[in-house]
């Protein structure tokens, strides 16, 4: 944690709203990206974003500041847990409509690609989403942290609070499960 962020964290601990807003601006994109790629719809991702910061600011008073870089890692860990909790709650709800609408929302913010390329991207993303839907919350999170957020095994283990061996084992199982599904779809 750099000196400036350390100061913001110290002020936020005392309830300074400006410091909280500064920390929010620094970390919101990374957390929203994690949340959105995990739940694949904007309202749920916004809920996760808000829950994460609310939990972080409320419990910040009880945290020690002697751990270098603790805030970014710590808030990311909160976000991971919030996302998995949210996913477990919403698992059986149908969010297809949200997902389609969110893709349209993405389109509006980007330069228009060719229609064929865009169709292909949508198709792949849709297939990936279908594949990930069969995984448990934890395996889904490990796959996402590994392949969407590009984290290393030791970083994932730290975030989830488990051993690297456990992460590797679950990642292997998840990838094997995904491969079987992919083969089944290709075969079909």
């Amino acid at each position: 944690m750099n000196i400036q962020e350390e100061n913001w964290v110290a002020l936020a601990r005392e309830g300074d709203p400006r410091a909280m807003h500064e920390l929010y601006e620094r970390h919101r994109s990374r957390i929203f990206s994690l949340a959105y790629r995990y739940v694949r719809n904007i309202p749920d991702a916004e809920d996760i974003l808000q829950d994460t910061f609310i939990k972080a600011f409320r419990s910040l008073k009880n945290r020690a500041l002697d751990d270098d870089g603790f805030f970014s890692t710590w808030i990311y860990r909160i976000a991971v847990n919030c996302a998995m909790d949210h996913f477990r709650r919403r698992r059986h709800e149908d969010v297809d409509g949200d997902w389609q609408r969110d893709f349209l929302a993405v389109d509006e913010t980007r330069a228009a690609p060719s229609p064929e390329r865009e169709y292909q991207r949508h198709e792949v993303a849709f297939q990936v989403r279908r594949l990930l839907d069969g995984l448990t919350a934890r395996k889904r999170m490990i796959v996402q942290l590994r392949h969407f957020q590009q984290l290393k095994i030791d970083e994932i283990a730290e975030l989830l609070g488990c051993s690297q061996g456990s992460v590797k084992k679950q990642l292997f199982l998840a990838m094997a499960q995904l491969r079987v599904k992919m083969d089944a779809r290709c075969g079909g």
Partner: protein
Amino acid sequence: MKCKEFRDLIFSCQDGMLAPVKNAEFAGHLRSCPACAEEFAALAKTGALLAEGAGDVPVPDWDRSWRRIAAAVAPRPRRRAAWDLFPRWALAAAGFLAFFILGIAFARLQLFPPGDSPAGTGDPAFAFTARDYFSLLQPVMAEYANAQDPGAAAPEDVQRVRRLLNDLYLLKMRAEGSRERGLQLLLGDIELVLLEMVHLDRSRPESVRRLGALIQEKGLPMKLRVFNPDNRKLTQI
């Protein structure tokens, strides 16, 4: 390198975390083992598909989210309770004092129930009346007790004796709740003697002597001295 070790190192290889020597061993096994090579390729293919399907992240309404967060973490003004106006030590002292006073009142009630308090006990008016009454009665009793001559043994007229009897009844009523059993017995004896006096046949000397003997038998002159107006015990009644 064995296949198991190879699989353990696949993710480390992808992360670029293998030492050069280990990396060379890994590459050698990859070339020599078709099953592991297939596993490695499949993992890479699945990973590439996932990365391609990650999709873009839309931009949410950052300000709306911040407003909700700020509202949730803002300190809520605490309503001041009535007891916040006083320091805690003052409240504790007041509570202790109230408890102490109630304790004393309860103990007094247990030790001295209201029914136990005799009408005469602690009643200044009663004590004064008893003292007056005994001071009036004492010479009369002494006169009858010592009377030998029937002619001289009727100094008191009947009306005066009746008044003494009436006053005695009032005194007895007041002394009913008294713990002084001696006083109650004395009043009973006085009543008996006064009734004899009322019905005394003053023309017959033997009647007068019999009354004198009764007064002596009951020990009234001595008892009235014991309960005389100057006696402290009577004052306490």
